[in-house]
């Protein structure tokens, strides 16, 4: 059982290290336009990649996931808060799965 704790520790050290390294290493603003542009685009691309198709894979019914995606995009387009968009997506899935599942 204590071996499990060593596994946990190894994973924790690695996952913490890669998070802390960049923020402590690069302390000055980067001037290079390519790097700056790259870093500007990274968040939007990576979050988009993680959202789809995952959003249709976690629901019981794929169509419910598609509804959540579409309604979520519309809600976010109209600048609804984080909490609202999240809640709307949950409600859409819950309601549509009452019908679909």
């Amino acid at each position, binding site marked *: 059982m204590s071996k499990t704790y060593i596994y946990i520790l190894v994973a924790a050290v*690695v996952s913490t290290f*890669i*998070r802390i390294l960049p923020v402590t290493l690069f302390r000055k603003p980067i001037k290079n336009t390519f790097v700056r*542009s790259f870093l500007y685009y*990274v968040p*939007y691309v990576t979050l988009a990649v993680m959202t789809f198709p*995952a959003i249709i894979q976690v629901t019981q019914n794929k169509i419910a996931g598609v509804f959540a*995606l579409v309604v979520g995009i519309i809600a976010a387009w109209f600048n609804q808060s*984080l909490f609202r968009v999240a809640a709307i997506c949950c409600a859409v899935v819950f309601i549509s799965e009452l019908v679909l599942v």
Partner: protein
Amino acid sequence: MKTYYSISKRQAFVEGFKDGIPIGLGYFAVAFSLGILARNAHFTPLQGFINSFLNRASAGEYAVYTVVAAGAGFIEMAIMTLVVNARYLLMSTALCQKFDSNTSMIHRILVGFGVTDEIFAITIKRPGLINPFYNYGACAIAVPCWAMGTACGIIAGDLMPSNVVSAVSVALYGMFLACIIPEARKNRVVAILIIISFVLSFIAANASFLTNISSGTKTIILTVVISVFAAITFPHPEVENE
């Protein structure tokens, strides 16, 4: 007192806490399902709690449970964790540009420690420089929910009705949308990139010759390829730096 925070520490903490509530709810549900996996790897609720608290990453912990269940070695564990969590290297690098250069080392370390997909998302959504106390507020609610969710999943197994799990698990993606779509509305390049990302991500998830590559690795490859392409083709003129 440092002057670069536009609002007080307390106010930033409260705002972070508020934005952390939907994250915490989503985390609880996701962590709960992760707890069911942990149970299969013979983790005790306390071990699940500690693992979730220290790793704070669904894919990363999924790797832990599968490696432990398979009885693989520590080196393999370390490599696996590095690969599935490598996207945090990118996220953390993106965040390093949003720190005031006066931000102390301890604040940098603590913010870095708290980087998860969702907390990263709400951090980049906020205009201007990083206020560490906003991140602390978000972590104060999100991380305990995450750790508790895992422990509850181990204890309660599959008692939660599946339609509730299904509904709650999209909360995280709703939050991602709330973080990226407003920028897409302002910047057409971002809008196009999001569509390209959706399409390529869908192809990557379904292409049969890619089934051996973990979803974490796919995320990294797609992120780097698409962002490099965008940075070359559409150099961003004035990267915000208020």
